[in-house]
Protein backbone atom coordinates (compact mmCIF):
# COMPACT_ATOMS: atom_id res chain seq x y z
CA UNK A 1 0.00 0.00 0.00
CA UNK A 2 2.78 2.42 0.89
CA UNK A 3 4.35 1.65 -2.49
CA UNK A 4 1.32 2.95 -4.36
CA UNK A 5 2.53 6.59 -4.79
CA UNK A 6 5.97 5.38 -5.89
CA UNK A 7 4.45 2.95 -8.34
CA UNK A 8 2.15 5.65 -9.77
CA UNK A 9 5.09 8.05 -10.13
CA UNK A 10 7.18 5.38 -11.84
CA UNK A 11 4.36 4.65 -14.27
CA UNK A 12 3.89 8.36 -15.05
CA UNK A 13 7.62 8.81 -15.70
CA UNK A 14 7.72 5.85 -18.08
CA UNK A 15 4.57 6.95 -19.94
CA UNK A 16 5.97 10.48 -20.34
CA UNK A 17 9.27 9.01 -21.55
CA UNK A 18 7.54 6.82 -24.15
CA UNK A 19 5.56 9.89 -25.27
CA UNK A 20 8.78 11.90 -25.55
CA UNK A 21 10.35 9.34 -27.85
CA UNK A 22 7.24 8.45 -29.87
CA UNK A 23 5.61 11.88 -30.35
CA UNK A 24 5.40 12.85 -34.03
CA UNK A 25 5.85 16.55 -33.51
CA UNK A 26 9.19 17.84 -32.32
CA UNK A 27 7.64 20.33 -29.91
CA UNK A 28 5.46 17.64 -28.30
CA UNK A 29 8.60 15.64 -27.70
CA UNK A 30 10.28 18.58 -25.94
CA UNK A 31 7.21 19.14 -23.77
CA UNK A 32 7.25 15.43 -22.90
CA UNK A 33 10.89 15.78 -21.91
CA UNK A 34 10.11 18.73 -19.60
CA UNK A 35 7.36 16.65 -17.96
CA UNK A 36 9.80 13.78 -17.44
CA UNK A 37 12.27 16.23 -15.85
CA UNK A 38 9.70 17.57 -13.39
CA UNK A 39 8.45 14.07 -12.48
CA UNK A 40 12.04 12.93 -12.00
CA UNK A 41 12.63 15.69 -9.48
CA UNK A 42 9.74 14.20 -7.46
CA UNK A 43 11.45 10.80 -7.75
CA UNK A 44 14.66 12.36 -6.39
CA UNK A 45 12.78 13.60 -3.34
CA UNK A 46 11.50 10.06 -2.78
CA UNK A 47 15.13 8.90 -2.99
CA UNK A 48 16.03 11.30 -0.14
CA UNK A 49 18.16 13.45 -2.44
CA UNK A 50 16.61 16.91 -2.14
CA UNK A 51 19.73 18.65 -3.50
CA UNK A 52 19.52 16.60 -6.67
CA UNK A 53 15.76 17.17 -6.92
CA UNK A 54 16.33 20.95 -6.91
CA UNK A 55 19.03 20.63 -9.58
CA UNK A 56 16.91 18.33 -11.74
CA UNK A 57 13.92 20.68 -11.58
CA UNK A 58 16.01 23.77 -12.33
CA UNK A 59 18.48 22.43 -14.90
CA UNK A 60 17.03 19.15 -16.18
CA UNK A 61 13.48 20.39 -16.62
CA UNK A 62 13.78 24.17 -16.74
CA UNK A 63 16.98 25.22 -18.48
CA UNK A 64 17.20 22.23 -20.86
CA UNK A 65 13.51 22.63 -21.69
CA UNK A 66 13.97 26.30 -22.58
CA UNK A 67 17.02 25.48 -24.69
CA UNK A 68 15.17 22.75 -26.61
CA UNK A 69 11.99 24.81 -27.08
CA UNK A 70 14.09 27.61 -28.50
CA UNK A 71 15.77 25.17 -30.87
CA UNK A 72 12.30 23.96 -31.96
CA UNK A 73 11.18 27.50 -32.69
CA UNK A 74 14.27 28.10 -34.82
CA UNK A 75 13.94 24.81 -36.68
CA UNK A 76 10.40 25.58 -37.80
CA UNK A 77 7.11 23.92 -36.94
CA UNK A 78 7.16 20.57 -38.70
CA UNK A 79 9.13 17.44 -38.22
CA UNK A 80 10.22 16.14 -41.58
CA UNK A 81 9.54 12.49 -41.98
CA UNK A 82 12.99 10.98 -42.19
CA UNK A 83 13.85 7.75 -43.83
CA UNK A 84 11.07 5.33 -43.01
CA UNK A 85 12.64 2.51 -41.10
CA UNK A 86 12.00 -1.14 -41.71
CA UNK A 87 9.88 -2.92 -39.12
CA UNK A 88 12.57 -5.58 -38.71
CA UNK A 89 15.08 -2.88 -37.77
CA UNK A 90 12.67 -1.45 -35.19
CA UNK A 91 12.12 -4.89 -33.68
CA UNK A 92 15.84 -5.59 -33.58
CA UNK A 93 16.54 -2.28 -31.83
CA UNK A 94 13.67 -2.95 -29.43
CA UNK A 95 15.11 -6.35 -28.55
CA UNK A 96 18.60 -4.93 -28.01
CA UNK A 97 17.26 -2.15 -25.76
CA UNK A 98 15.26 -4.73 -23.79
CA UNK A 99 18.43 -6.77 -23.29
CA UNK A 100 20.19 -3.67 -21.91
CA UNK A 101 17.22 -2.99 -19.63
CA UNK A 102 17.13 -6.57 -18.36
CA UNK A 103 20.86 -6.49 -17.64
CA UNK A 104 20.48 -3.25 -15.68
CA UNK A 105 17.39 -4.58 -13.89
CA UNK A 106 19.39 -7.61 -12.78
CA UNK A 107 21.93 -5.30 -11.18
CA UNK A 108 19.12 -3.40 -9.49
CA UNK A 109 17.32 -6.52 -8.25
CA UNK A 110 20.41 -8.38 -7.06
CA UNK A 111 22.65 -5.72 -5.50
CA UNK A 112 25.94 -6.47 -3.82
CA UNK A 113 25.70 -6.82 -0.07
CA UNK A 114 26.62 -4.83 1.88
CA UNK A 115 25.98 -1.85 -0.39
CA UNK A 116 29.20 0.10 -1.06
CA UNK A 117 29.12 3.52 0.55
CA UNK A 118 31.33 6.53 1.05
CA UNK A 119 28.91 8.14 3.49
CA UNK A 120 31.12 7.59 6.59
CA UNK A 121 34.08 9.31 4.88
CA UNK A 122 31.88 12.20 3.83
CA UNK A 123 30.43 12.43 7.34
CA UNK A 124 33.97 12.63 8.75
CA UNK A 125 34.68 15.61 6.46
CA UNK A 126 31.46 17.24 7.62
CA UNK A 127 32.65 17.19 11.22
CA UNK A 128 36.03 18.68 10.23
CA UNK A 129 34.64 21.58 8.23
CA UNK A 130 31.53 22.43 10.17
CA UNK A 131 28.97 22.49 7.36
CA UNK A 132 25.62 20.76 7.78
CA UNK A 133 24.83 19.73 4.20
CA UNK A 134 26.77 16.56 3.30
CA UNK A 135 26.32 17.13 -0.45
CA UNK A 136 27.89 20.60 -0.27
CA UNK A 137 30.75 19.13 1.75
CA UNK A 138 31.37 16.52 -0.97
CA UNK A 139 31.07 19.09 -3.77
CA UNK A 140 33.35 21.73 -2.27
CA UNK A 141 35.69 19.92 0.09
CA UNK A 142 35.89 16.14 -0.12
CA UNK A 143 35.68 15.92 -3.94
CA UNK A 144 36.32 19.58 -4.77
CA UNK A 145 38.56 18.64 -7.69
CA UNK A 146 35.54 17.18 -9.55
CA UNK A 147 33.55 20.37 -9.03
CA UNK A 148 36.49 22.48 -10.21
CA UNK A 149 36.90 20.44 -13.39
CA UNK A 150 33.15 20.59 -14.00
CA UNK A 151 33.33 24.38 -13.92
CA UNK A 152 36.09 24.19 -16.50
CA UNK A 153 33.82 21.96 -18.63
CA UNK A 154 31.09 24.62 -18.42
CA UNK A 155 33.52 27.32 -19.59
CA UNK A 156 34.71 25.05 -22.41
CA UNK A 157 31.11 24.36 -23.46
CA UNK A 158 30.45 28.09 -23.63
CA UNK A 159 33.61 28.57 -25.72
CA UNK A 160 32.38 25.75 -27.95
CA UNK A 161 28.97 27.40 -28.44
CA UNK A 162 30.55 30.81 -29.09
CA UNK A 163 32.97 29.23 -31.56
CA UNK A 164 29.98 28.37 -33.78
CA UNK A 165 29.41 32.07 -34.46
CA UNK A 166 29.73 32.80 -38.20
CA UNK A 167 32.91 34.80 -38.90
CA UNK A 168 31.33 38.17 -39.86
CA UNK A 169 29.25 38.20 -36.66
CA UNK A 170 32.08 37.40 -34.24
CA UNK A 171 31.89 39.42 -31.05
CA UNK A 172 28.25 40.31 -31.57
CA UNK A 173 25.19 39.55 -29.47
CA UNK A 174 23.22 36.27 -29.49
CA UNK A 175 19.87 36.32 -31.24
CA UNK A 176 17.05 37.90 -29.30
CA UNK A 177 15.22 35.61 -26.89
CA UNK A 178 12.08 37.67 -27.29
CA UNK A 179 8.98 35.51 -27.17
CA UNK A 180 6.92 35.46 -30.34
CA UNK A 181 3.92 37.11 -28.71
CA UNK A 182 5.85 39.25 -26.26
CA UNK A 183 3.14 41.05 -24.36
CA UNK A 184 1.79 42.60 -21.20
CA UNK A 185 1.69 39.60 -18.86
CA UNK A 186 5.23 38.52 -19.73
CA UNK A 187 6.59 42.04 -19.28
CA UNK A 188 4.77 42.29 -15.96
CA UNK A 189 6.18 38.95 -14.79
CA UNK A 190 9.68 39.96 -15.89
CA UNK A 191 9.38 43.17 -13.89
CA UNK A 192 7.88 41.67 -10.72
CA UNK A 193 9.60 38.31 -10.42
CA UNK A 194 13.38 39.04 -10.70
CA UNK A 195 13.76 40.85 -7.34
CA UNK A 196 12.02 37.93 -5.62
CA UNK A 197 13.92 35.38 -7.73
CA UNK A 198 17.30 36.94 -6.94
CA UNK A 199 16.54 36.79 -3.22
CA UNK A 200 15.53 33.12 -3.58
CA UNK A 201 18.69 32.37 -5.61
CA UNK A 202 20.94 33.98 -2.99
CA UNK A 203 18.99 32.21 -0.24
CA UNK A 204 19.54 28.83 -1.94
CA UNK A 205 23.29 29.52 -2.23
CA UNK A 206 23.63 30.75 1.36
CA UNK A 207 21.41 28.00 2.74
CA UNK A 208 23.32 25.33 0.78
CA UNK A 209 26.00 25.18 3.47
CA UNK A 210 23.72 23.53 5.98
CA UNK A 211 20.52 22.49 4.24
CA UNK A 212 19.51 21.40 0.73
CA UNK A 213 20.41 23.97 -1.89
CA UNK A 214 23.69 25.31 -3.12
CA UNK A 215 25.65 26.91 -5.90
CA UNK A 216 24.12 25.06 -8.82
CA UNK A 217 20.52 25.47 -7.77
CA UNK A 218 20.94 29.11 -6.75
CA UNK A 219 22.97 29.92 -9.85
CA UNK A 220 20.30 28.38 -12.08
CA UNK A 221 17.57 30.45 -10.41
CA UNK A 222 19.65 33.59 -11.04
CA UNK A 223 20.15 32.52 -14.68
CA UNK A 224 16.40 31.93 -15.02
CA UNK A 225 15.66 35.47 -13.83
CA UNK A 226 18.12 36.88 -16.36
CA UNK A 227 16.60 34.78 -19.16
CA UNK A 228 13.10 35.90 -18.17
CA UNK A 229 14.16 39.54 -18.49
CA UNK A 230 15.68 38.81 -21.91
CA UNK A 231 12.58 36.90 -23.06
CA UNK A 232 10.32 39.81 -22.13
CA UNK A 233 12.67 42.00 -24.19
CA UNK A 234 13.43 44.32 -21.28
CA UNK A 235 17.15 43.71 -21.86
CA UNK A 236 18.92 42.33 -24.90
CA UNK A 237 21.53 39.59 -24.63
CA UNK A 238 24.98 41.15 -24.16
CA UNK A 239 27.59 41.09 -26.93
CA UNK A 240 29.98 38.21 -26.41
CA UNK A 241 33.03 40.43 -26.91
CA UNK A 242 32.32 42.37 -23.70
CA UNK A 243 35.18 42.02 -21.23
CA UNK A 244 32.88 42.27 -18.20
CA UNK A 245 30.89 39.29 -19.46
CA UNK A 246 34.01 37.23 -20.10
CA UNK A 247 35.45 38.10 -16.68
CA UNK A 248 32.22 37.00 -14.99
CA UNK A 249 32.36 33.70 -16.89
CA UNK A 250 35.83 32.83 -15.57
CA UNK A 251 35.41 34.47 -12.13
CA UNK A 252 34.15 31.27 -10.44
CA UNK A 253 36.81 28.87 -11.72
CA UNK A 254 39.57 31.46 -11.03
CA UNK A 255 38.46 32.05 -7.42
CA UNK A 256 38.17 28.27 -6.97
CA UNK A 257 41.69 27.75 -8.36
CA UNK A 258 43.16 30.53 -6.21
CA UNK A 259 41.51 29.01 -3.12
CA UNK A 260 42.82 25.61 -4.22
CA UNK A 261 46.42 26.76 -4.65
CA UNK A 262 46.25 28.76 -1.42
CA UNK A 263 45.76 25.37 0.22
CA UNK A 264 49.49 24.70 -0.32
CA UNK A 265 50.37 27.57 2.05
CA UNK A 266 47.55 27.72 4.56
CA UNK A 267 46.73 23.99 4.78
CA UNK A 268 48.19 20.72 3.63
CA UNK A 269 47.84 20.69 -0.15
CA UNK A 270 45.78 21.56 -3.21
CA UNK A 271 42.12 22.31 -2.44
CA UNK A 272 42.41 21.72 1.28
CA UNK A 273 41.30 24.35 3.74
CA UNK A 274 42.37 24.98 7.34
CA UNK A 275 39.47 23.88 9.58
CA UNK A 276 38.74 27.27 11.16
CA UNK A 277 38.79 29.10 7.81
CA UNK A 278 37.00 26.40 5.81
CA UNK A 279 33.52 27.82 6.06
CA UNK A 280 34.33 31.41 5.00
CA UNK A 281 36.49 30.16 2.11
CA UNK A 282 33.76 27.77 0.91
CA UNK A 283 31.09 30.50 1.08
CA UNK A 284 33.35 32.86 -0.90
CA UNK A 285 34.05 30.20 -3.55
CA UNK A 286 30.35 29.34 -3.74
CA UNK A 287 29.36 32.98 -4.26
CA UNK A 288 31.83 33.40 -7.12
CA UNK A 289 30.83 30.05 -8.66
CA UNK A 290 27.12 30.86 -8.50
CA UNK A 291 27.65 34.15 -10.34
CA UNK A 292 29.67 32.40 -13.06
CA UNK A 293 27.13 29.58 -13.34
CA UNK A 294 24.30 32.07 -13.75
CA UNK A 295 26.15 33.90 -16.55
CA UNK A 296 27.31 30.69 -18.27
CA UNK A 297 23.87 29.02 -18.20
CA UNK A 298 22.21 32.18 -19.50
CA UNK A 299 24.69 32.54 -22.35
CA UNK A 300 24.51 28.81 -23.18
CA UNK A 301 20.74 29.13 -23.67
CA UNK A 302 21.20 32.36 -25.66
CA UNK A 303 23.55 30.56 -28.06
CA UNK A 304 26.19 31.84 -30.49
CA UNK A 305 26.21 35.41 -31.76
CA UNK A 306 23.59 36.13 -34.41
CA UNK A 307 24.16 39.86 -34.88
CA UNK A 308 27.28 41.74 -35.84
CA UNK A 309 28.84 43.83 -33.05
CA UNK A 310 27.72 47.42 -33.05
Amino acid at each position, binding site marked *: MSLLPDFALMLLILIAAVWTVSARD*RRDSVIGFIVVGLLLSLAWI*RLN*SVDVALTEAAVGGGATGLLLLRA*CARLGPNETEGVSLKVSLRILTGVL*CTVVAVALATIVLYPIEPAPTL*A*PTAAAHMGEIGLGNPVTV*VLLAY*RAIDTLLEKVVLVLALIGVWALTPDPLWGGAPG*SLRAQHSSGPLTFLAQVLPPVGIVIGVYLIWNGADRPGGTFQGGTVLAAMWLLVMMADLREPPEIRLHTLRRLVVLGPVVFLVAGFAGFWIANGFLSYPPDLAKPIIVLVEAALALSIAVILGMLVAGPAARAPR
Partner: protein
Amino acid sequence: MIGSTTLYGLCATGLVAIGLYGLVLHPSPLRKVIAFNLLGSGTFILFGVAAQRGAAAGLLADPVPQAMVITGIVVAFAATAVAVALLLRLVESGGSTLEPSAPDPQDDRPS
Protein backbone atom coordinates in the same frame (compact mmCIF):
# COMPACT_ATOMS: atom_id res chain seq x y z
CA MET B 1 8.88 -7.80 -1.44
CA ILE B 2 10.18 -4.96 -3.62
CA GLY B 3 11.06 -1.73 -1.83
CA SER B 4 10.53 1.75 -3.24
CA THR B 5 14.24 2.14 -3.99
CA THR B 6 14.19 -0.97 -6.17
CA LEU B 7 11.09 0.36 -7.88
CA TYR B 8 12.94 3.54 -8.88
CA GLY B 9 15.85 1.39 -10.01
CA LEU B 10 13.51 -0.46 -12.38
CA CYS B 11 12.08 2.88 -13.53
CA ALA B 12 15.64 3.97 -14.33
CA THR B 13 16.28 0.86 -16.43
CA GLY B 14 13.08 1.61 -18.34
CA LEU B 15 14.25 5.18 -18.99
CA VAL B 16 17.63 3.93 -20.22
CA ALA B 17 15.95 1.48 -22.62
CA ILE B 18 13.47 4.07 -23.95
CA GLY B 19 16.22 6.66 -24.37
CA LEU B 20 18.50 4.18 -26.11
CA TYR B 21 15.72 3.16 -28.49
CA GLY B 22 15.04 6.78 -29.44
CA LEU B 23 18.73 7.54 -29.76
CA VAL B 24 19.31 4.64 -32.15
CA LEU B 25 16.15 4.89 -34.24
CA HIS B 26 15.21 8.56 -34.54
CA PRO B 27 16.46 10.06 -37.79
CA SER B 28 16.16 13.66 -36.56
CA PRO B 29 19.24 14.95 -34.67
CA LEU B 30 17.21 17.05 -32.21
CA ARG B 31 15.17 13.98 -31.26
CA LYS B 32 18.41 12.07 -30.78
CA VAL B 33 19.61 14.77 -28.37
CA ILE B 34 16.35 14.54 -26.41
CA ALA B 35 16.52 10.73 -26.30
CA PHE B 36 20.13 10.91 -25.13
CA ASN B 37 19.04 13.18 -22.28
CA LEU B 38 16.39 10.59 -21.29
CA LEU B 39 19.08 7.92 -21.25
CA GLY B 40 21.21 10.20 -19.09
CA SER B 41 18.34 10.83 -16.65
CA GLY B 42 17.90 7.06 -16.27
CA THR B 43 21.59 6.69 -15.47
CA PHE B 44 21.37 9.49 -12.90
CA ILE B 45 18.45 7.76 -11.17
CA LEU B 46 20.56 4.57 -10.96
CA PHE B 47 23.14 6.68 -9.09
CA GLY B 48 20.34 7.85 -6.83
CA VAL B 49 19.41 4.23 -6.10
CA ALA B 50 23.05 3.49 -5.24
CA ALA B 51 23.09 6.56 -2.97
CA GLN B 52 19.92 5.44 -1.22
CA ARG B 53 21.30 1.95 -0.65
CA GLY B 54 24.55 3.39 0.65
CA ALA B 55 22.83 5.33 3.44
CA ALA B 56 25.10 5.16 6.47
CA ALA B 57 26.70 7.22 9.22
CA GLY B 58 23.41 8.87 10.09
CA LEU B 59 22.93 10.27 6.57
CA LEU B 60 19.71 9.54 4.67
CA ALA B 61 21.63 8.75 1.49
CA ASP B 62 25.28 8.49 0.44
CA PRO B 63 26.23 12.09 -0.51
CA VAL B 64 29.02 11.14 -2.94
CA PRO B 65 26.79 9.76 -5.75
CA GLN B 66 24.41 12.66 -5.14
CA ALA B 67 27.19 15.17 -5.67
CA MET B 68 28.29 13.31 -8.80
CA VAL B 69 24.73 13.44 -10.17
CA ILE B 70 24.46 17.19 -9.53
CA THR B 71 27.72 17.65 -11.44
CA GLY B 72 26.42 15.27 -14.11
CA ILE B 73 23.13 17.11 -14.63
CA VAL B 74 24.94 20.40 -15.17
CA VAL B 75 27.49 18.84 -17.54
CA ALA B 76 24.66 17.13 -19.45
CA PHE B 77 23.02 20.52 -19.86
CA ALA B 78 26.26 22.05 -21.15
CA ALA B 79 26.73 19.17 -23.61
CA THR B 80 23.12 19.55 -24.79
CA ALA B 81 23.68 23.27 -25.34
CA VAL B 82 26.73 22.55 -27.50
CA ALA B 83 24.87 19.83 -29.42
CA VAL B 84 21.88 22.11 -30.09
CA ALA B 85 24.16 24.98 -31.18
CA LEU B 86 26.02 22.62 -33.56
CA LEU B 87 22.75 21.30 -34.92
CA LEU B 88 21.30 24.78 -35.55
CA ARG B 89 24.52 25.90 -37.22
CA LEU B 90 24.49 22.81 -39.43
CA VAL B 91 20.89 23.36 -40.48
CA GLU B 92 21.41 27.07 -41.08
CA SER B 93 24.39 26.42 -43.29
CA GLY B 94 22.29 23.95 -45.29
CA GLY B 95 24.32 20.91 -44.30
CA SER B 96 21.53 18.66 -43.08
CA THR B 97 18.90 16.86 -45.08
CA LEU B 98 16.84 15.64 -42.16
CA GLU B 99 15.73 18.94 -40.67
CA PRO B 100 13.65 21.46 -42.63
CA SER B 101 15.36 24.63 -43.71
CA ALA B 102 15.45 27.15 -40.91
CA PRO B 103 14.95 30.90 -41.06
CA ASP B 104 17.89 33.13 -41.80
CA PRO B 105 20.49 33.04 -39.02
CA GLN B 106 20.45 36.84 -38.90
CA ASP B 107 18.05 38.11 -36.32
CA ASP B 108 14.83 39.48 -37.75
CA ARG B 109 15.29 42.89 -36.23
CA PRO B 110 17.56 45.48 -37.84
CA SER B 111 20.70 46.03 -35.83
